[in-house]
C-alpha cells in the first residue's frame, strides 16, 4: 500500500475543509497539508447554499443580539461559550472573505449589504445575490490555489481513520481513478466532510451528503452529538426538494394556505404583517422549525393545497415585482421556472418542508477538538454546538469559516505538543485491515440485498419515525428497522467489478455511513422525551429543562445500537426562556 506522509490531513474540501487548509498554509508554509475529497472541491455542497452568512457588521446590530438570536433560535441547546466565540469571530471571517475577493452584494456607498433572515432581530446576513454559498466556496477554492503547500487529493474517498492508543495518526482512502487504497500518515486529521441529509428521501442535500465524515469519527470512537436534531427547511420545491432560500421571505415573500390565508398567524407568529413589509422575527420571518411545524398542522387540518407531488402551501412573491426578484433572487426564479415550470413573478409557488441540515454531528469542544487526540472536526459534520436544537439560518456558512480556521489552529497546536506515533507497525496493520474490509466487500458475490433497496428502506423508516413530528412508538419502530437494516447490510453485493471510478462500491460505502448516522438519529430521538427545537414529540410536547438541558452523545458499537450518554449544556449568560416569535416581542 502506498504511504503518503503529511503533517495534517483534511477530509473534505467544502467550505470548512478549504478554510482549514488555507489557515494551515498561511500559518506555516512548511506544513505539509493533504486535502482529501471525494469530489473536486468546487462540487462540494457548500455551492448550493443560497441565502447568506451571518455576521455583525452594521452599526444598528450588536454581538449580544446575534448571541440572543442564536441561543434562542437553538432552543437553549447551544453551548453558550462556543456561541460567544463564534459571534466574535464571525465578522472577521466574512471580512477576510471580502479581502479574498468574494463578490458580496453591496450598498450604494460600496459597503457590504445585509439582508434579513428568519429568527433574526436585526438584518445581519451577508449575501452574494442568492448564490452566497457558491461564491464562498469558489472564493475559497480559488484562494487555496495560491498556496503550493496545499496538496490536493481530489476524488479520493476516505475509508477509515487510523488510531492507536486513543490518538489519531491518519487514515486510509480510496483513489477513485485507480481503485487503489492509500495510507495517509498524518500527525493530525481534520474532518470537514459535511452533512448527512441523504438519509432522508426528500432533501435539499446533494448526492454527496451521506454522513461519511460523521461515520468515520464515530467508528473510530468519537461520539456523535445531538443527532436527533434534523432541520426541515420550510420552503422546498415539492418535486425535487430543491431549496428556495429563506431570502425569499427575507425580501418579503409570504406563505399562504389553500384559502389564501397567511396561516402563520394561527401558530403564534402573528399578528399578520403588511404584505411586502416583512417584520423581523415575525410571521414569515419566524424560525425554520416553527414554520415547518405549522405546515404539518395545516396539513392535518386539510388546509394545504394538493398537488401531484403531494400537499403544499404557497410561497407568494408576486408583489416583489420582476425587478427586485431579478436583482435579489435570480437563482430562485431560474430554479422555479426550470424545475417546476412556474415563474414566481407571475404565480405563487407550491412548496413544502424538506430535510435540510443536521444540527448534530461529531462531538467537538470549542477548539474543534474531538475526544480522540489528534482528531478535529469542523463544518456541518461537527457539532460544537452553536446550532443547538435548531440552527438559525445563515449561521452555518459562517460556522464553516470560524471553526474551519479554529480546527486548523488547534491541529497545529496538537502537532507541537504531540509526539509522533512510535508504533508504525500497529498503524500499518490497521491500514491493512481497512484494505481487507474493502476488498471483502468488493469481492463478495451471490449476496441477496441491493444497495438501492436498503437505501430506500432506510430513508422511508427515517421519514416515518423521525420526521417533523415524532412519537415514542414510531421512533422505536424506526430503531428496530434500522437495527435490522444494519444486519442486512452485511449481505449486500457490489456488482461492478471494475477498479476504475466504481460508483457501485462508493454507494455501498456511503450507505454504510448513512446507516450508522441514521441509527443515532432514531435512538437519540427515542430517548429524548421532550420537545425542543427541531425535535418535536407528540407524546412529550413540552421542553423539559430539568431532564434534557443536555446534549445526547452516541457511541458506536460494531454489532449493537449506539450507546447513549448525556452531557450538560454550557450556559453562561442566557437562562433558558421562552422563544417568542410573535409581533409582541419588541
Amino acid at each position, binding site marked *: 500500500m502506498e504511504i503518503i506522509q503529511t503533517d495534517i490531513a483534511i477530509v473534505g474540501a467544502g467550505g470548512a475543509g478549504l478554510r482549514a487548509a488555507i489557515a494551515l498554509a498561511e500559518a506555516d508554509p512548511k506544513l505539509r497539508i493533504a486535502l482529501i475529497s471525494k469530489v473536486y472541491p468546487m*462540487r462540494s455542497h457548500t455551492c448550493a447554499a443560497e441565502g447568506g452568512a451571518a455576521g455583525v457588521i452594521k452599526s444598528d446590530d450588536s454581538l449580544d443580539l446575534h448571541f440572543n438570536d442564536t441561543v434562542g433560535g437553538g432552543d437553549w441547546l447551544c453551548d453558550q461559550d462556543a456561541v460567544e466565540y463564534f459571534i466574535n469571530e464571525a465578522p472577521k471571517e466574512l*471580512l477576510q472573505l471580502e*479581502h479574498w*475577493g468574494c463578490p458580496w452584494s453591496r450598498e450604494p456607498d*460600496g459597503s457590504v449589504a445585509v439582508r434579513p433572515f428568519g429568527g433574526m432581530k436585526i438584518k445581519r446576513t451577508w449575501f452574494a445575490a442568492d448564490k452566497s454559498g457558491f461564491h464562498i466556496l469558489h472564493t475559497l477554492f480559488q484562494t487555496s490555489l495560491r498556496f503550493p503547500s496545499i496538496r490536493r487529493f481530489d476524488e479520493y474517498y476516505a475509508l477509515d481513520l487510523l488510531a492507536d492508543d486513543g490518538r489519531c495518526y491518519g487514515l486510509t482512502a480510496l483513489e477513485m481513478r485507480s481503485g487503489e487504497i492509500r495510507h495517509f500518515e498524518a500527525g493530525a486529521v481534520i474532518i470537514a466532510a459535511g452533512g448527512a441529509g441523504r438519509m432522508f428521501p426528500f432533501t435539499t442535500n446533494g448526492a454527496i451528503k451521506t454522513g461519511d465524515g460523521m461515520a468515520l469519527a464515530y467508528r473510530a470512537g468519537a461520539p456523535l452529538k445531538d443527532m436527533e436534531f434534523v432541520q426541515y427547511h420550510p420552503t422546498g420545491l415539492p418535486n425535487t426538494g430543491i431549496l428556495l432560500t429563506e431570502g425569499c421571505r427575507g425580501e418579503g415573500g409570504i406563505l399562504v394556505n389553500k384559502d389564501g390565508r397567511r396561516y402563520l398567524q394561527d401558530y403564534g407568529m402573528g399578528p399578520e404583517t403588511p404584505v411586502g413589509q416583512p417584520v423581523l422575527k415575525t410571521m414569515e420571518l419566524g424560525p425554520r422549525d416553527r414554520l415547518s411545524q405549522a405546515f404539518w398542522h395545516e396539513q392535518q387540518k386539510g388546509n394545504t393545497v394538493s398537488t401531484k407531488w403531494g400537499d403544499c402551501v404557497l410561497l407568494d412573491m408576486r408583489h416583489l415585482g420582476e425587478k427586485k426578484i431579478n436583482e435579489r433572487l435570480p437563482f430562485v426564479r431560474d430554479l422555479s421556472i426550470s424545475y417546476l*415550470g412556474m415563474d414566481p413573478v407571475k404565480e405563487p409557488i407550491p412548496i413544502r418542508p424538506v430535510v435540510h441540515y443536521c444540527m448534530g454531528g461529531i462531538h467537538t469542544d470549542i477548539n474543534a477538538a474531538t475526544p480522540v487526540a489528534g482528531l478535529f472536526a469542523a463544518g456541518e459534520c461537527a457539532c460544537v454546538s452553536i446550532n443547538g436544537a435548531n440552527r438559525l439560518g445563515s449561521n452555518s456558512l459562517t460556522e464553516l469559516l470560524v471553526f474551519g480556521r479554529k480546527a486548523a489552529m488547534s491541529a497545529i497546536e496538537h502537532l507541537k505538543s504531540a509526539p509522533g506515533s512510535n508504533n508504525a507497525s500497529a498503524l500499518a496493520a490497521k491500514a491493512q485491515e481497512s484494505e481487507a474490509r474493502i476488498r471483502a466487500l468488493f469481492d463478495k458475490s451471490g449476496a441477496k440485498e441491493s444497495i438501492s433497496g436498503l437505501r430506500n428502506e432506510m430513508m422511508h423508516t427515517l421519514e416515518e419515525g423521525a420526521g417533523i413530528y415524532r412519537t415514542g412508538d414510531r421512533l422505536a419502530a424506526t430503531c428496530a428497522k434500522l437495527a435490522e437494516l444494519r444486519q442486512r447490510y452485511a449481505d449486500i453485493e457490489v456488482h461492478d467489478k471494475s477498479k476504475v471510478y466504481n460508483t457501485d462500491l462508493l454507494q455501498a460505502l456511503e450507505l454504510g455511513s448513512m446507516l450508522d448516522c441514521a441509527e443515532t438519529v432514531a435512538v437519540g430521538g427515542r430517548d429524548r422525551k421532550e420537545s425542543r427545537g427541531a425535535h418535536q414529540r407528540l407524546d412529550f410536547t413540552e421542553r423539559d429543562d430539568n431532564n434534557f438541558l443536555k446534549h445526547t452523545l452516541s457511541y458506536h458499537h460494531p454489532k449493537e445500537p449506539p450507546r447513549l450518554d448525556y452531557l450538560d449544556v454550557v450556559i453562561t449568560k442566557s437562562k433558558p426562556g421562552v422563544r417568542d416569535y410573535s409581533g409582541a416581542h419588541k
Partner: protein
Amino acid sequence: MSERQIQLEVLRYDPETDREPRFQTYTVPCLNEWVVLDALNYVKDNLDTTVSYRWSCHMAVCGSCGMMINGEPKLACKAFIHEYPDQIRVEPMAHFPIERDLVTVVEDFITKFASVKPYLIPKEDKPVSAGEFKQTPAELMKFKQYTLCINCMLCYAACPQYGLVPEFLGPAAISMAHRYNQDSRDGGRDQRQEVIASHEGVWECSFVGACSEVCPKHVDPAGALQQVKVASTIDWYKEHLMPWSKK
C-alpha cells in the same frame, strides 16, 4: 406513474476490460418533468448498478454532471427529457479523455484554471481589521457575470479550438482571469497577462462563440475572451510601438 418511455443510450467504457467504447441501451420509464440525470439515476438504481457518471447537486450549480446529450454539451441535471425525442444518447464530454463510462479526466482544465492566478491579488495592502474594500454596485456589475462560472467545462467540450489545439487555455480559464482583472479591488492584471498573452493564451481563440452558446450560467466566455484580446492587443502596441506610454 410513468408518463413516457425513452431509450437511453449510454456510452460505456471500462479501461480494464474494454478495448473501445460501446453503447448500451436502457428502456427508462420517465416522468415528464424529469431531467436526463433522473433517467441515469433510474438506470443506476433499478437496471444496472455499474454505470458510472458524476453528479451531486441536481440543481445546476455544482458543475459535476456535464456530458454530451444527443451530441451537445449539457448538464444532465438541466437537460429536460420533454425537450428530447424518445431516443436519448449520452456520451462523456468531448475533448476530454474518458476515464470510465461518462466520467472524463479533467486535470487539464484544473491545471489551466489554476495557471491564470484566479484569485484576488490586492491592489492595496489593507489588513482585515481595517474593514472591507469599498466596491459600488456598478463596480461589482463589471465582473459579476464572470463570477458565475461553475467550472462545468461545457465550454471546453464545445470549443473547436480546444479540440484542435489542446494547449489553448480555453474559455473558462480566460474568463476567470478577466473576472479578477475587472475587479476594482485587484491589482494583478500584469501577472495574469503574462500567462494569458502567451501563445496558448487568448490568441488561439477564433471567435466561434460556441462556448457562450452552451454555457448554462450565461457567463459569456466569448465576450470575456474578446475583451481580453482587445486589451492584450493594446498592451502589445503600448509595449512595442509606444514604449514611452507604458505605465
